[in-house]
């Protein structure tokens, strides 16, 4: 216990880097997922193809392999990245590929006539996207995105493999250093602490988003209909999830 208190400054600096890596990853992932997700249901075939290729390439490569490749392989192309950036790039590309697929699933679970009736009113394609389609997709994909974000936060610990001085790595250093100096391994206490911290972070994220989700649903329904709509939401969610599995280009 004393050891952990003594090492708090070091652990904290590691945690700070983990936070930085995680928040940048999540922001970029949300943004890029949205772009590729929208591209995947575009009218233009070229955009759909680009999106599908992006998704397939990065979804099918394990993050670790991707990370090692980016960090050790990129310098061969004259693109030397520091560990932090390498981790950011590989986490974001994996996250965005999966995120884009979730959003595409969300769009596909919307009835085709929603787009049609918006167009029939004279809305242009981007207005249809912004005011009619996107708002209907955001809420149902929230749970899947929480899951993805949680995975990404956990995956930031992989950055330790290329030497980014994030949380897990600082913990590792403390364990090794103490073992060397005292001959006794504090692994149980230190890694136990690390485990708890990751758990608390991801758990609060889950709680937070399910609260947010409930609020969003509530704000757009009313008293008596509340129950019916949340089951609609659940349905839309499961549909968007199962839509992940079948591949068919939109319209």
């Amino acid at each position, binding site marked *: 216990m004393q050891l952990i208190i003594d090492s708090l400054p070091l652990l904290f600096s590691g945690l700070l880097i983990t936070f930085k890596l995680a928040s940048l990853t999540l922001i970029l992932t949300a943004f890029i997922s949205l772009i590729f997700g929208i591209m995947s249901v575009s009218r233009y075939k070229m955009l759909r193809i680009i999106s599908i290729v992006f998704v397939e390439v990065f979804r099918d490569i394990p993050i670790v392999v991707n990370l090692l490749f980016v960090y050790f392989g990129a310098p061969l192309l004259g693109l030397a990245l520091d560990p932090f950036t390498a981790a950011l790039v590989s986490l974001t590309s994996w996250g965005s590929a999966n995120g884009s697929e979730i959003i595409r699933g969300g769009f596909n679970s919307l*009835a085709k*006539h*929603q787009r*049609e*009736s*918006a*167009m*029939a*009113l*004279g*809305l*242009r*394609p981007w*207005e249809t996207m912004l*005011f*009619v389609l996107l*708002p*209907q997709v955001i809420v149902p994909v929230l749970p899947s995105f929480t899951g993805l974000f949680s995975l990404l936060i956990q995956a930031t610990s992989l950055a330790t493999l290329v030497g980014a001085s994030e949380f897990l790595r600082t913990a590792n250093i403390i364990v090794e250093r103490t073992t060397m100096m005292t001959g006794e391994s504090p692994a149980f206490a230190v890694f136990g602490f690390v485990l708890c911290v990751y758990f608390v972070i991801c758990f609060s994220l889950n709680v937070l988003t399910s609260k947010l989700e409930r609020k969003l649903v509530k704000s*757009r*329904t*009313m008293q*008596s*209909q509340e129950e*019916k*709509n949340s089951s*609609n939401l659940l349905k839309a969610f499961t549909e968007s999830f199962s839509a992940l599995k079948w591949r068919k280009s939109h319209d």
Partner: protein
Amino acid sequence: MVNSMSIDQLAGSAISIKGLSKWYGDFKVLEAIDLNIDNGEKVVICGPSGSGKSTLIRCVNGLEEHQEGQIEVEGKVLEKDIKSISKVRAEVGMVFQHFNLFPHLSILDNCTLAPLTLRNVSRQEAEETAMHFLEKVKIPDQAHKFPSQLSGGQQQRVAIARSLCMKPKIMLFDEPTSALDPEMIKEVLDTMVELAEEGMTMICVTHEMGFAREVADRVIFMDSGKVVEMNTPENFFSNPEHPRTKLFLSQILDH
């Protein structure tokens, strides 16, 4: 401002279709359709399922592309680029079989979305217009509810009001009552009859022959992508020329 639809009743073609043909792959859905519809005219289209009725009226507002022929709406040739199509669509209201209200928006917001996005109006104006048309379809008290809280008939009437909020010159209906429970069909037809009486130019795909008799200036019978017969309602029902029309009428009037 609200009754602007009766201003445009001067003679002249609202819709002019010349030699319209359309294919889905090798399959010819529409074959050399010629059709002129005057301002204020009401045309009912009927025919067996799969005969191309929906495709025809979807071509009129550019929801489907055609390969041959020309469509003019209010004197403007329908081009392929999305900008000019969107302009035409804003002048042509369309009501579908499935009441496609936007589930994430309240009834009022459903009605104000397009005007606020496409017309230069304030929110207050848009809401006033929306309430006017919601009153017309007799559901002003539901304005703040959401689509899922309304019955099918009410939703369909909102869909009509939503289209009217864009002050269209022409309304297209694609079997607006065929997804409704029988007891709700009348309320939607009544709304349509009222609209017709006000002088709206209308094309209705429907098998409600009572409505056709009451409202239509012409009834068109389509089969296999062709206009087989076009006639006044009196002649169409009492004295159909084509054997296929007779067969069709006997089938739908029988049950």
